[in-house]
């Protein structure tokens, strides 16, 4: 307990460290302030048209299928279509028909839309008589990207525990405190507990505050959410210990942190966006702890609490596995010193 007091005392002086934990909170506020409108247009098909070339009816028809941007000259339109960061389809009208063009680097879906649009436009009136059943979804996809960003901010917040722990241990190593610790009558257990607690508490608090700002959680979801946060912050703090253990200089430590951060943040998003729920790759993605965290919070945000318990179970397995691995490694190191 006394050790912990000293640890706290040492970070109190470190303003930057407090700032790291505040960072996700600030990002959370920023995401919250961003209006949904700027995100909404992203999922839609984008059409670009020439102002004087196109009839009001056609614009209206295009607008029912996506966003329409009007340009004054053909050059401007071509430039916008050619811009690699957009997926815009250029639409020109001649008489009753339309022609489409694109830059050729678009996603498959947009290429197909551009190819088939003129014929679909031509036959827009002739409709088969159909019963249409469109099931509305609970979550608005308008919020989809926003909730993705929020979950990302939360996972980053948990990751802060790792960064903090790793930096803390490495700088102690550089200052030679590691050797002093070996002489001091502290046990490995109390050392690990003290080091972990700081990152763990910081990460958890930062995540919970961020969640409080951005997420609307129902009462039944509070318990599973807390469990996910606590287990994930624990794993992240533990990873911080691993990094601290394996790196022998600040620069090396930073690179490890960078690699772990990429591994921590990129795969969950990638799997979430591209891989269907029941494939083998999706199940394999649970080998990365942050995937379980990410899926868990996403499930909670989408309102499916029961599925989230599966993610919590995976997290518990991760906690036990990584803790045992750490014990094993530090035990081996101890034997080497003796």
């Amino acid at each position: 307990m006394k050790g912990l007091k000293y640890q706290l005392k040492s970070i109190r002086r470190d303003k930057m460290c407090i700032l790291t934990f505040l960072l996700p909170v600030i990002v959370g506020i920023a995401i919250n302030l961003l209006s949904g409108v700027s995100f909404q247009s992203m999922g839609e098909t984008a059409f670009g048209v020439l102002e004087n070339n196109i009839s009001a009816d056609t614009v209206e028809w295009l607008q029912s299928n996506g966003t329409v941007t009007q340009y004054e000259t053909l050059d401007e339109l071509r430039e916008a279509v050619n811009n690699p960061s957009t997926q815009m389809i250029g639409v020109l009208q001649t008489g009753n028909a339309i022609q489409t063009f694109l830059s050729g680097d678009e996603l498959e879906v947009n290429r197909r839309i551009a190819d088939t649009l003129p014929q679909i436009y031509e036959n827009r009136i002739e409709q088969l008589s159909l019963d249409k059943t469109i099931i509305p979804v609970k979550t608005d996809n308008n919020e989809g990207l926003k909730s993705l960003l929020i979950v990302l901010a939360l996972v980053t917040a948990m990751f802060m525990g790792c960064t903090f722990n790793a930096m803390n241990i490495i700088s102690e190593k550089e200052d030679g405190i590691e050797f002093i610790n070996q002489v001091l009558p502290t046990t490995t257990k109390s050392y690990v507990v003290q080091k972990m607690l700081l990152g763990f508490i910081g990460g958890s608090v930062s995540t919970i505050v961020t969640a409080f700002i951005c997420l609307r959680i129902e009462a039944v979801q509070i318990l599973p959410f807390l469990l996910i946060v606590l287990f994930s912050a624990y794993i992240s703090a533990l990873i911080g210990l691993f990094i601290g253990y394996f790196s022998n200089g600040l620069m090396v430590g930073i690179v490890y942190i960078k690699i772990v951060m990429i591994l921590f943040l990129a795969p969950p998003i990638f799997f979430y966006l591209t891989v269907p729920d029941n494939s083998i790759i999706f199940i394999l993605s649970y080998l990365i702890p942050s995937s379980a965290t990410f899926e868990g919070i996403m499930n909670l945000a989408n309102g499916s609490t029961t599925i989230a318990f599966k993610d919590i179970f995976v997290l518990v397995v991760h906690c036990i596995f990584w803790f045992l691995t750490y014990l094993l490694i530090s035990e081996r190191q101890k034997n080497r010193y003796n």
Partner: protein
Amino acid sequence: MWRGFSHLLKKDFKLMLSSKFFLLALISLVLYSCYINFVYVNLDQEMYPVYLYDPQDKLSVTSEYITKIDSREAVETACADQYSVGFDFSADKPELYMLSSGLETTDHYRMVWGEAVINGNVDGQAGVIGTNNKEMKNRREITAEFLFFELSAVGFLGLASMLFKEKQMGVIRVHGILPVRRSMFILSKLLLLLVSDLMFTSLLTVINLGVPYAIDVLPEVLLQAGILSLIMTLVGFFCAIRLPDFKQFSLFYLVLAVFVTTPVFLAGQTGIAWDWIVYHPMYHLFEAMKAAYFSTPMVEAPYYLICFGAIILLFLLVYQTLNCEMAKEG
């Protein structure tokens, strides 16, 4: 004086070697290239699939877009992804079944698309005005982004780790009495980092674009990389002299990375229109880098003048700060 400079260079090079600077750049290079070649180039989004349940074979149209399935439940399961469109022709009146994607226009288009497929109205070919295919575009785009990220990181962090080590060893204090110009102290580091950044740029470009494409874009890319590298190294130099220790520096860097690079990436990759982004200095550097990779002429003389001015100003600022620091150290 030049002898002193060459010794400084040698010393800085050794320092970079011992801080595993090159090894780390190499690891980053491998990591990025693997990601680009195995993951990013394959990213795509397929056309909305159409699932058809037609036990009595009422529909005569066959199309590459239609997948036939054999029960109503299968239609509902297939459409659970909020992306596919399902048709049930088992009843008297055919039924279109789908889950809303949450976007009104996308839902409308999916319906229109489903009907067009069922009616067989999906022929045609759009005109192509660009020169890149999707793979080449992906390669150029992501290489530009990784390079931007890495250059703003490596120069900045690499220099700081060297400088802090020197600070700890008291090298700055020793320099105060050495017969070497202070500008040399800055220049030698700047030169080494510039050269290593340019090498990194060349390797990353050649590996990920392929030799013929890389040769086309390299001159322009190297110019932009040089500008970015010089600016970031000088900023790193300034911060490293000012901040008391490396830990604080790296945390400060984290803050900077999140707020400087993230909005730039978002604006660059998704085409989100943010009016204020033009006031973000890094955005212009990023756009210039991207334009270099896509060989689009968009960079003009004022941009280079401002960059040049910024580099000179930063150099003077660093020089002044170093002077102050040496005076402080006695």
